């Protein structure tokens, strides 16, 4: 009879194989290892603790149900991250439907505004402690619209190409590029203004 491995020391692929055979303990170990990352990704997109907790749990349930589809082309953590991102995008689409203004309308209205912003002297966060920097980035991210934040998260944190972001968000590559440009310029401006506020 095959001996079961030590779950806490087993590598992800081993745990995945066991979980694919229905081993719930192996799956729990995978949850324990990657729960913070999955939650953090949901939080970075939704900016709300409760929503991010609920959605990350939903992602794990979906992960368990679709585990037989996991082929190991990417790492398990990457695969789970894709699931939680898709759930977040669905959630954001629902929010978008209840919003009065559409993304396209917003893009039209903001067209060119980002070009008018003065160029910020690079590195507005110089000599900041890591914790302070994190807080400042969080505050700036909170002030972006969810469309701009999502593009930024998918590009900078998930390192997705324009084409993939466009596919995931259901928009054109041009829209991705202009949203990303706006988001970066807005971030630079927000980070600089936060720095000025703190210096007062």
């Amino acid at each position, binding site marked *: 009879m095959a001996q079961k491995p030590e779950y806490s020391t087993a590598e992800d692929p081993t745990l995945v194989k066991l979980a694919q055979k229905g081993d*719930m303990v192996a799956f729990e170990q995978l949850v324990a290892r990657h729960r913070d990352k999955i939650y953090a990704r949901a939080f970075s997109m939704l900016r709300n603790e409760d929503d991010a907790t609920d959605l990350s*749990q939903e992602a794990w349930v979906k992960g368990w149900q679709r585990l037989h589809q996991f082929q190991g082309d990417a790492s398990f953590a990457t695969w789970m991250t894709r699931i939680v991102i898709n759930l977040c995008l669905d959630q954001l689409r629902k929010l978008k439907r209840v919003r009065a203004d559409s993304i396209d309308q917003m893009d039209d209205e903001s067209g060119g505004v980002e070009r008018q912003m003065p160029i910020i002297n690079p590195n507005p966060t110089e000599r900041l402690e890591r914790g302070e920097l994190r807080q400042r980035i969080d505050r700036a991210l909170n002030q972006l619209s969810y469309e701009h934040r999502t593009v930024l998260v998918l590009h900078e944190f998930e390192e997705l190409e324009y084409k993939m972001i466009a596919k995931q968000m259901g928009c054109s590559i041009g829209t991705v590029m202009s949203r990303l440009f706006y988001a970066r310029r807005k*971030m630079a401006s927000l980070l600089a203004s936060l720095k000025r506020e703190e210096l007062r």
Partner: protein
Amino acid sequence: MKTEAILRLQAYLDNEVSSADARQIASWIARDAEAKALYEELKATKDLLNAENELAVTLPESHDFYWSKIQRAIDKAEQEPVQRHSPRPWWIRLLAPVAGAAVLGVFVLTSVSFNGITGHYKEVSETDNSITFYSPEQKMTVVWIPSGNEEIVASADESDD
């Protein structure tokens, strides 16, 4: 700067341009102070976010509590009948129309047999669509006349006698 040029500058920063375009844009940045300043601002923001990729956010719940909710949701989902949503096997999908046709055929055959008497039939008249049934075993001929007053005319087959 035009929007198109600005977005190309950004695409260069993100490695989303061809090598020929990259050379062209690099030379533009080198000779244009405004393009250079904008490029540096975009790069600083990108670098900052990349450095913060490892988010210092942690789940605000204990593992046991978080896992118990996941496990309950999995158990609940597994208790629901799955047949409702699962696709039928290919052989059922293939045989279903055939089986349906067979059932229909049986129904038609039984509906054109009278009290267990089966037989050959043919249309005897094109004008009134009357149909004749013939049973060799029973030595009987039945004629169905589909008019306003339908009637069945039965007669013993005397042709063989």
